[in-house]
């Protein structure tokens, strides 16, 4: 992009740069024009060569399927025969006749509001804690980080055991303490809190990001605040928070994007808690219990691969795409560092 603005006074020759092509790369470079042009052509070829794997990937695995998804959303198609155009019927079906779609959106909103904010707050708390720990810091850091590494399916199966209402250790412990014992993954009003607990367990990634940013806050600012008589809470409010607010923003936005993709934990938790036999495909309807864990990605899977209604699945996929890109544009606007370059 910078090429287009890189021309300096005196370097532009009349008619030398046709509309749409780059101006001279280096105005000071000696040599006649054809040499420059050859150099430019060589540079373009080189750039193209380096980018080629991704250019193919971008076309085949991004543009083509997106266009194709948009096309399928206006057709009736079950994988056999040819797709036949049916106008807005799929859109009408998804928006007006598929109550689980709205339930899935409501669940996603719940997860965005509760799960993302609790996870960010908890990650910040754990990050703060680890910067204050003097003894055994290495041990604590590893302990706090470890659950983040547990593969999602394994972590979810483990939590389905730990939180199972019958013999699970957590409810047993709660019972011994005389506290209420919720049904967790088996109770529609507790399944999302249970998933939130699972997400907070794997907070290690946020802990590391917050830890690094907290250590980057200039020490002088704390010292100055202390001289001014600021207590610990005031120091947090007026020194720490302003310094790390971009990181909090980053954590929130990426958290929202991850929540849009929320799939594995929800579907596995539902399957394990429902006790419905495994991977035969059609037997398990996601959302267990009572649709409380439906999310849009699961709906794409359900409509497309369990009900073979590709048209409706593509409508949900497009809604998912629109929301994800809207959130992504927020990330790009708020964090200029994301797009920073070295020239």
């Amino acid at each position, binding site marked *: *992009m910078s*090429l287009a603005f890189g021309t300096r006074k005196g370097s532009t020759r009349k008619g030398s740069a046709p509309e749409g092509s780059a101006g001279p790369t280096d105005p000071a470079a000696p040599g006649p024009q054809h040499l420059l042009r050859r150099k430019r052509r060589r540079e*373009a070829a080189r*750039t193209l060569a*380096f*980018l080629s*794997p*991704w250019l*193919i*990937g971008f076309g085949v695995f*991004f543009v083509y*399927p*997106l266009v194709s*998804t948009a096309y*399928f959303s206006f057709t009736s198609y079950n*994988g056999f025969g040819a797709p036949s155009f049916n106008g807005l019927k799929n859109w009408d079906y998804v928006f007006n006749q598929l109550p689980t779609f709205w339930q899935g959106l409501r669940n996603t909103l719940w997860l965005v509001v509760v799960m993302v904010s609790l996870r960010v707050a908890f990650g910040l708390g754990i990050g703060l*804690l680890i910067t*204050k*720990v*003097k003894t055994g810091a290495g041990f*604590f850091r590893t302990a706090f*980080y*470890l*659950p983040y590494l547990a*593969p999602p*399916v*394994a972590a979810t*199966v483990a939590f389905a*055991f*730990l939180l199972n209402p019958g*013999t699970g*250790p957590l409810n*047993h412990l709660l019972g011994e303490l005389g506290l209420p014992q919720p049904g967790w993954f088996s109770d529609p009003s507790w399944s999302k809190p249970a998933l939130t607990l699972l997400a907070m*367990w794997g907070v290690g990634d946020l802990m*590391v*990001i917050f830890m*690094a940013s907290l250590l*980057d806050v200039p020490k002088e600012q704390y010292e100055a605040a202390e001289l001014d008589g600021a207590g610990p809470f005031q120091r947090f409010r007026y020194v720490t928070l302003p310094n790390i607010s971009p*990181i909090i923003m980053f954590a929130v936005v990426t958290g929202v*994007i991850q929540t849009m993709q929320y*799939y594995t934990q929800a579907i*596995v938790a539902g399957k394990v808690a429902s006790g*419905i036999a*495994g*991977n035969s495909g059609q037997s398990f309807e996601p959302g267990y219990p009572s649709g409380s864990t439906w999310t849009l*990605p699961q709906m*794409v*899977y359900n409509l497309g*691969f369990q009900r073979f209604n*590709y048209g409706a*699945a593509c409508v949900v*996929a497009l809604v*998912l795409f629109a929301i*994800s890109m809207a*959130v992504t544009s927020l*990330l*790009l606007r708020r*964090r200029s560092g994301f797009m920073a370059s*070295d*020239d």
Partner: protein
Amino acid sequence: MTLDTTLGQAPARTRGAGGPAARTARRRALLNWVAVHALAVAAALFFLLPFVFVFLTSVMNDQQALTTDYWPTSWNWGNYAKVWDTPGFLTWWRNTLLYAGLGTLLTVVSSLPVAYALAKFRFRGRNLALMAVIAMMMLPPQVTVIPMYLFWAKQMGLSGSLWPLIIPMAFGDAFSIFLLRQFLLTIPKEYIEAARIDGCGDLRTLLRVVLPMAKPAIAAVALFQFFYCWNDYFGPQIYASSNHGAWTLSYGLESFKAAHHTNWNLTMAATLLVMAPVIVLFFFAQKAFIEGVTLTGVKG
């Protein structure tokens, strides 16, 4: 336990030296230490107890695993052998290693030149290309899965295998490209210019000059990609579910649970066997991993 002993020592340590002001300051620092470390111990319990309970249950016998006991009456290490001998378990291991190993290799090889071009070449539409990479990175895989499935299953006849997941990694992975680019930005231009003056071509510059400097970032990208493949559930569910011989550990674990739904002990043993490799890998490559996490967020 350590907390109690330090508390007991507290008066002994503060007695003696310093005036009353110094003593209150020292007492406050000590209280602070105790509070911070008590919190840290509580947090460590929250993070580690799940592993402990899973492990303890995994060595119980069948009857005890159905009770609310915490501590095993007998230590049945044979449970792990039983899981290992389950038909298919070894195949899932092999498939997962193939998917994660080959996928990681292809990702690194195909993403590095792209990241280099995005970081160091000046060309028209570079910001646009970068935005496209970010858009691809943020795209939920479910958005494109219907046409992709039809493409791989109908046109290529590759359903029931992991190839539809591995082959795309030869064409650059958006997240890896982005992460590598962020790191390559930090390499000073002068190194690359010096190599060019010495007569290095672009590819040689990349391989001889940039690659050795980018080793930490490449290690982080490789680890992330390995973990991604190891953990992937949706991909194998779509492409491999029809063929037991192509299942991965993450996908197979769930069916293991379904087939052994009354055997929490065996399920927990299998769960630990799926977790173990990534955790071991982490201990070997801790530094690269943490650097990678910070690179994605902080060093923008």
